[in-house]
């Protein structure tokens, strides 16, 4: 997919837009007015130094935290995402930086954790889970990603870090209807698996989803992403298309920009 070479806004309305989001944890001001726009069919790289607020912003979009101030818009409509459940219902999925998997549950149980498939008939009323259907859907999603796991019925604690990360990515891709946020999804991966995740991200974007990709690999993001949002000290100091961006300019912005320069 080609990036918008004109350097202007793409024609579509953003799927996800944040406006002036602030968030404090006690005395720590994690976000001081963060604004970004993620467009359908595009990958938005979210970069910034450690502690810049990337994870906090990602988690607010995913409904983990409530913001103190600011607005979250889904396809131009202001939404109040008060819980992870609500974000999911709006079609927003996230791959957490720490994955947030239940290590003792199996691969397919983790895939469907919190929204288990139920059997039909009277068992449904009791909340009886349809293990087989869950395994089949999980297998499909993993195959789509080209990810390898030895078995879908082992607890995820028996898998390698890379395999666990692949599961988290495949799960988000399977469920997402509007947007996927990935918080450093390739951090624990080898070269081959990293390439697989990037392929999956691109495939998800090609399906029309907006993907927000948090990463520290700036050269890769310049090459791979469509747009880039640079965070510093809790705000997005710049967002622009990646076409023609120079690494040195990005680094300068990331490390020295003032908020009002945005």
């Amino acid at each position: 997919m080609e990036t918008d070479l004109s350097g202007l806004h793409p024609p579509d309305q953003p799927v996800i837009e944040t406006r002036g989001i602030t968030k404090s944890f006690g005395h720590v001001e994690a976000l001081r007015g963060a604004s970004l726009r993620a467009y359908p069919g595009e990958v938005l790289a979210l970069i910034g130094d450690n502690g810049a607020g990337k994870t906090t912003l990602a988690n607010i979009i995913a409904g983990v935290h409530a913001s103190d101030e600011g607005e979250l818009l889904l396809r131009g409509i202001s939404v109040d995402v008060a819980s992870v459940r609500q974000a999911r219902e709006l079609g927003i999925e996230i791959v957490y930086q720490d994955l947030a998997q239940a290590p003792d549950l199996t691969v397919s149980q983790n895939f469907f954790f919190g929204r288990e498939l139920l059997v039909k008939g009277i068992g449904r009323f009791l909340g009886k889970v349809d293990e087989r259907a869950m395994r089949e859907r999980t297998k499909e999603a993993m195959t789509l990603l080209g990810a390898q796991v030895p078995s879908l019925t082992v607890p995820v604690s028996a898998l390698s870090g890379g395999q666990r990360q692949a599961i988290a990515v495949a799960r988000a891709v399977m469920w997402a209807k509007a947007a996927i946020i990935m918080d450093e999804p390739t951090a624990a991966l080898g070269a081959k698996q990293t390439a697989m995740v990037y392929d999956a991200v691109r495939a998800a974007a090609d399906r029309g989803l907006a993907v927000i990709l948090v990463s520290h690999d700036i050269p890769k993001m310049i090459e791979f992403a469509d747009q880039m949002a640079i965070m510093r000290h809790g705000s997005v100091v710049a967002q622009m298309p990646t076409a023609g961006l120079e690494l040195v300019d990005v680094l300068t912005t990331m490390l020295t920009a003032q908020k009002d320069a945005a």
Partner: protein
Amino acid sequence: MTATKPSPQASATTFSSSEPALVKRIITSTAFMIAVVVLVLILLFGALSPNAVFLGPANFRNLALDSAQLILLAVGMTFLVGAGELDLSIGANVILSSVVAAKVITLLGGTPEEVLAGNYSNVGVAIFFGLLAAVATGTVFGIVNATLVNLLRVNSFIVTLAMMSVGSGIAYIVTGGVNVSALPRDLQKNFGSADFFGIIPVPAVIAVLLGIVAWFAMTKLRFGTHTLGMGSSIRAAQRAGIKVKTQRVKLFGIMGLIAGLVGFIDISRFLTTNIQGHQGDALAAIAAVVIGGTSLFGGRASVLGSIIAAIIPAILINGLVIMRVGSFYQLVVTGLILLVAVGIDQRRRTQPS
């Protein structure tokens, strides 16, 4: 079985054994190992007891009756421990529920004179409301535990330790320290010491039925997955949109309900409350749960293992008594088995799969 066809890079060999055959899974399961231990104990006492009385049907009836209450408590505790919680207050809950039930029965049973003479004119109604009172008291007690854990954000170990004191304190206040006795004989005859087919104790049947329901809920229902997921990683459960506080209320509520039922069984068997007793109930239940293969750290649980392990204390007590050895050795042996079980659990955690 691999999910996808193995590529040269994927170290399929490392994992190919991770889905062992059914037979191997059963043999290596803790429930199976503990069943073997139980069988060995039964055979051992059978061989050592005079005239093999230990293996007689009368003794099996005693074993079933004596283990029923611990089985019930262990089943409830399996869910809590699996969810990463503990309830140390179940002994106090059993006492309080039995006291409330006994009070209700004596109040509704007839005039004070009739009741004192053990001559209840209104026995059916009294027993019905007594059962209701026991179960309601137990459930409310459990819900209070969960609510305190939720509100104070303190772990359940501390909360239920405090509630253990509160619960037995209230039982002493309500009774003035005197046991409520002279409960209607019908309670014992038709329930507490009653048998199906003249040999299978009613409380044991209740314990087994509840065990089956619990096994189904743990392994087949969403409720079980959410319970174990919460015990495995509470953060993961929260991020998966699971209402862990509500789940906690349900889990402690069920534990409380079971404690109330056990309290009712207790007064039905002995026709008196036992406010000095039940001190060791919580630890015995937790021990059975852990011996049965549930991880003390949550995330993994075996209802079947808990049920089998909950028979061990009764076997030891009966066996030692029959052999005229002090039954106090039971505590020592149970403690040793618990240590072995915890050791196995710890090893499993440090070397997954």
